[in-house]
């Protein structure tokens, strides 16, 4: 006897009522534990279609783990998510067919040629020969790899590898692309070039989910979420996030021995936060202008040579340090 086929809607952890037609990603109470350790500890957020969504957080905060769940590679241990309308647990295959993913290591086959990599991914996504020819031409153009089709991928320099990886990850023209630290280890010129490509994709209506360490890249994003120790500690537009610090005063201090000065300021009255940003010392003096006025003399009398003090607009990095500080930890 044949089993009656039951066209049952797969069960989802995310109720339909939460999912709107213009949502690319809806995450609800999603968690992932490895043993006792919660790498992702119950997160909620929504990404709208067509957005560039920045997912920021320090090392080990759970960014990659979140992406792997959203791509249907690993199952959450609690909660769930809808990606392009598909449930990540019960419809993982549909999720995977409808997204592009570019990993932290831009995982091309180093021992295959440029063309072989393209051929492989085109075949995996089931592109027809005609479609492949069209996409191949487009990607070679986009990645600036015309004439180097027969070269081994391993011999390309990082910038080209990265663009080829983007090409392979998008060969099937997905409407949503996950990029996990796509610019790590790439020089600033190549980074700028890469972001131009991403902006082009976004202009074409593709949703981008990008994780990054670089705060300057976060300004390319329409919306941001900060993840810290598996929890989302802030979300909003870059502007909204900087507004967290709107009432605080940030001083940028140029001082000869930054690390020493930092240690001296730690826990001093009137100093809300102090940290290095590049070669500069950043000091958040809160709303107290008194501290602002006497900071140079305080440092001077402690034996530090202050070369200059400026009041600066809070950057995303300032906001980030502040947010992490509020959580009782350090970035």
């Amino acid at each position: 006897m044949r089993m009656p086929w039951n066209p049952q809607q797969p069960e989802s952890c995310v109720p339909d009522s939460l999912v709107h037609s213009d949502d690319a990603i809806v995450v609800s109470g999603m968690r992932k534990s490895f043993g006792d350790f919660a790498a992702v500890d119950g997160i909620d957020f929504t990404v709208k279609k067509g957005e560039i969504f920045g997912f920021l957080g320090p090392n080990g905060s759970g960014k990659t783990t979140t992406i792997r769940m959203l791509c249907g590679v690993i199952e959450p241990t609690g909660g769930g998510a809808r990606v392009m309308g598909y449930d990540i647990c019960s419809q993982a295959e549909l999720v995977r067919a409808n997204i592009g993913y570019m990993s932290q290591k831009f995982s091309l086959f180093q021992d295959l040629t440029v063309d072989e990599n393209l051929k492989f991914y085109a075949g995996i996504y089931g592109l027809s020969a005609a479609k492949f020819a069209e996409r191949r031409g487009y990607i070679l153009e986009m990645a600036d790899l015309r004439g180097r089709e027969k070269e081994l991928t391993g011999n390309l320099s990082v910038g080209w590898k990265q663009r080829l990886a983007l090409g392979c990850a998008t060969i099937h023209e997905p409407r949503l692309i996950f990029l996990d630290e796509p610019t790590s280890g790439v020089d600033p010129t190549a980074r700028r070039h890469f972001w131009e490509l991403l902006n082009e994709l976004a202009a074409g209506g593709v949703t981008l989910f990008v994780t990054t360490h670089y705060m300057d890249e976060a300004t390319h994003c329409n919306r941001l979420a900060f993840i810290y120790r598996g929890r989302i500690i802030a979300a909003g537009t870059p502007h909204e996030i900087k507004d967290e610090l709107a009432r605080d005063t940030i001083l940028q201090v140029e001082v000869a021995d930054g690390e020493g000065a930092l240690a001296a300021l730690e826990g001093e009255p009137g100093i809300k936060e102090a940290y290095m940003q590049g070669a500069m010392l950043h000091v958040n003096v809160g709303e107290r202008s008194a501290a602002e006025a006497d900071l140079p003399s305080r440092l001077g009398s402690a034996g530090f040579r202050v070369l200059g003090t400026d009041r600066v607009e809070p950057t995303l990095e300032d906001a980030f340090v502040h947010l992490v500080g509020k959580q009782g930890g350090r970035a």
Partner: protein
Amino acid sequence: MSLRRIWLLIWKEFTQLLRDRSMIPLIFLLPVIQLVMFGYVIGTDVKDLRTAILDLDGTPASHRVVEGFTSSGYFVAVARPVDEAGVRKTLDGNTAQVAIIIPKGFADKVRRGQATKLSVIVDGSDAKTASVAQGYAGSIVANLSSKLYPSPAAKPGVTTPVGVDARVRVLFNPTMRAVNTMVPALLAFILMLSTQNLMSQSIVKERERGTLEQLFVTPIGRAEYLIGKLLPYVAVAIIQILVVFTVGTLWFKVPFSGSVAVLGVGLGLFMITALGQGMLVSLMSRTRYQAQQAGTFLMVPSMMLSGFVFPLSSMPAVLIPLTYLIPLRYILVIVRSNFVKGSGFVALWPQFLAMIIFSIAIFGLGLSRFQKKLND
């Protein structure tokens, strides 16, 4: 399941394999090198045994005996001590591996047709050499006695310090060529070595470079990935077996009296076991170097406790129970008996049963751990 995706994975694997300069020699040369190494250096007939000769008789008849040994090519006279204490010294000092003592009055007894005693002392510290030397000495003495004694009535006895039965070997391997049992054993050994290593290396490489992660974000299913990964290495293993078989039978002239079906089924089951081991090794290792180490680590007990290098008969009793846990042990019995004696499924059913159990258990364990790892 999509055939197109599986085919692409296989194509990709072979392209990578063929492009890796270190891979091709590994696939084709490694079996030949090992065959030559084990076949010639370890496995060939024990030759040129260092021999001490004490001829207390000093007659033409006793000279014939000495010549019978030295002209055989197996024994080389390296010392001529003058008394039994001297013989003892050469053996203790490792100057000689074998000593032959011809007693006084040997020629007289032969002439009178009486039984004579000839002592052949073999250094038993090298079990393998000892048993081979014993076999040679036995057949040389038998040959001599038929020449020295025209009538079959009386024969000299041979005394040897160890009491191993040499007839077993002589029966199935009359030329006593160790290579005849070494080549079939190498079929199984090389199969295990390369299947396990190539497979684990390739998986670990894929993980190291992050391509594994990438593949699982595409529509490739786990089963498709595994099939695409296993099939190329099955093909490689079959090629290697054919290389060893061809070189073994044509170059080393090892007679094959078995059946391809028995050999094929046995090696097939063993290959499944080896693929399972490859998966397990790849799960235990983060880097290719670690995988190499883990593979070698697994290989050592297999070599030592399976009867591949040391005969099971000379294994200390406490180790015997351990040998039952080594899959190589069973396949060695299968390939050797099939090669040399032509034994079939009926005679070898306990070994086949063990191979089936091992292949299901190890491959199943590898598969389930692999699946689990991918889910984390």
